[in-house]
């Protein structure tokens, strides 16, 4: 495809920015600008989407990106990606251990009794999907009282800081393949292009920053019948993972901060492969920055589907690594869709010329046929 540069339009482009700003302030004199803290907290699930799709755990900047993009998730993730591309890479961390997460939610659909117990935490799973009209005119006083009241009414708890992983219990029972420490260096999708075949670490990293809707759509195709993962959620957990880095002087592991994340393991159909020894369940894994359960579940299903595709060849689109991994990135796909809005005057002129020539030939041919018939 050929492109040509264009010029002009600078004034209109600046005007467009002004119009965007004007609409953002559309409430007029009665309006108050959204604060970054308000977006980060009151739109926390939206902020979660942006930190994961932007590939950078920076909730404040994600909230700012949401504000400047007026709620467009693709634009917000794009802005966060653009920011990260301007920053130097200081280090790669050691592998962090998600069993150390400080949880706020933990459920299993495989077992009702899991070691440590199930805790629903903040969820809409059992909520009625009815409009809460009381929120349309919420008083600031009442709003500020919500958290205080919750903390006062709920007694202190002596629950542990961390909880064991459900998959480890299944592994101990011999229902899962034994854990094998991987020594492979993980694939860095921010520095290396995806040239297929790619290792599983590239697939996990790509899906971890994929656009939620894209990932869900492909996973849904597998769920509906274009695939056979048939997942059961062994564990879905949401919580804060302490990021442990070596102290620059002592080398002792020191907590540098924490990351809110969602993690999901799904148990899938068992494999009865006589060459591999005892039959065991297979597993799929999903995780992302922020609180985004649908994304983690969709990723876990696709992980399992891709493992199958990598091993036996793809029988369905969701098992094809190239099909899945090259079509789930929001910034890539929205960029391609949006580029069609840019001037294509010369290429389209060429298309029109070709069409007119073909039409002329068609007309000439018809005239000749009619002449012959007469």
């Amino acid at each position, binding site marked *: 495809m050929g492109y040509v540069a264009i010029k002009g339009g600078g004034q209109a482009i600046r005007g467009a920015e002004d119009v965007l700003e004007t609409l953002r302030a559309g409430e007029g004199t009665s309006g108050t600008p959204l604060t970054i803290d308000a977006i980060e907290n009151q739109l926390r699930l939206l902020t979660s989407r942006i930190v994961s799709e932007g590939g950078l*755990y*920076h909730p404040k900047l994600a909230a700012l990106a949401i504000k400047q993009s007026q709620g467009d998730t693709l634009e917000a993730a794009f802005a966060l990606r653009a920011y990260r591309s301007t*920053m130097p890479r200081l280090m790669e961390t050691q*592998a962090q251990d*998600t069993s150390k997460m400080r949880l*706020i939610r933990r459920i299993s659909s495989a077992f009702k009794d899991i070691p440590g117990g199930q805790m629903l935490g903040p969820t809409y799973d059992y909520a009625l999907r009815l409009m809460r009209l009381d929120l349309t005119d919420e008083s600031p006083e009442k709003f500020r009282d919500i958290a205080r009241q919750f903390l006062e009414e709920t007694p202190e708890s002596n629950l542990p800081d961390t909880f064991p992983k459900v*998959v480890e219990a299944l592994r101990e029972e011999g229902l899962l393949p034994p854990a094998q420490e991987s020594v492979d260096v993980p694939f860095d999708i921010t520095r290396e292009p995806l040239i297929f075949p790619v290792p599983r670490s590239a697939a*996990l990293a790509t899906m971890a920053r994929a656009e939620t809707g894209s990932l869900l759509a492909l996973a849904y195709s597998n769920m509906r019948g274009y695939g056979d993962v048939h997942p059961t959620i062994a564990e879905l957990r949401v919580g804060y993972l302490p990021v442990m880095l070596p102290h620059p002087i002592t080398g002792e592991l020191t907590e540098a*901060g924490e990351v809110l994340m969602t993690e999901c*393991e799904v148990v899938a159909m068992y494999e009865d492969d006589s060459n591999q020894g005892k039959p065991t369940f297979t597993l799929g894994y999903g995780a992302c920055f922020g609180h985004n359960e649908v994304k983690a579940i969709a990723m876990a299903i696709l992980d399992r589907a891709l493992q199958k595709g990598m091993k036996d060849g793809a029988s369905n689109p969701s098992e094809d690594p190239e099909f899945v991994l090259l079509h789930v990135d929001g910034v890539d796909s929205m960029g391609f869709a949006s580029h069609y809005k840019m001037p294509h005057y010369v290429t389209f002129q060429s298309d029109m010329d070709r069409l007119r020539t073909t039409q002329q030939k068609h007309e000439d041919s018809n005239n000749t046929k009619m002449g012959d018939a007469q």
Partner: protein
Amino acid sequence: MNQTLDIKHQRTQLPRLLMALPEDEVMTTAASFAEHYRIEDIKLPQAGLGLMQLKDSALQDGYFLGEIPLATAHVVLTDAQQNRTEGAAQIMHSEAGLARAIAIMDAVVSAKLTGHELVTQLLARGLTVLTAQQSSRKKMLARTRVDFSLLSSAEEEDADE
């Protein structure tokens, strides 16, 4: 987290405890040590990103979940007798200045330099903040602890009636 601040582990907990406090306060306290010590950078404070690696809990493969903001600093404090004490910090933050402030306090705490009580007080306050935070998270868990039980056929019939 532990309710008391273990002195032995004070240095490993220091960044987290200080980051729980208002940034201005940490910066101001760190700056006050310049009255007693010459503070020099061994490495220039830097803000950037770290690529965060996880181990997937299903198959134990390492992979990169994404990036985190990271600020680093490494300083040396020299007193009037030319005694040198190093301090350093790596924190999840986008302000190199805060990393430098924490590195200064790391030096002060590690060698119990003059004024370390000031830092200890800040650490204790940070601990209070984090303890409250962890308490609220545990309350979220405790309040929503669920004990699903299977509906027996007898109960099911009752429910249908």
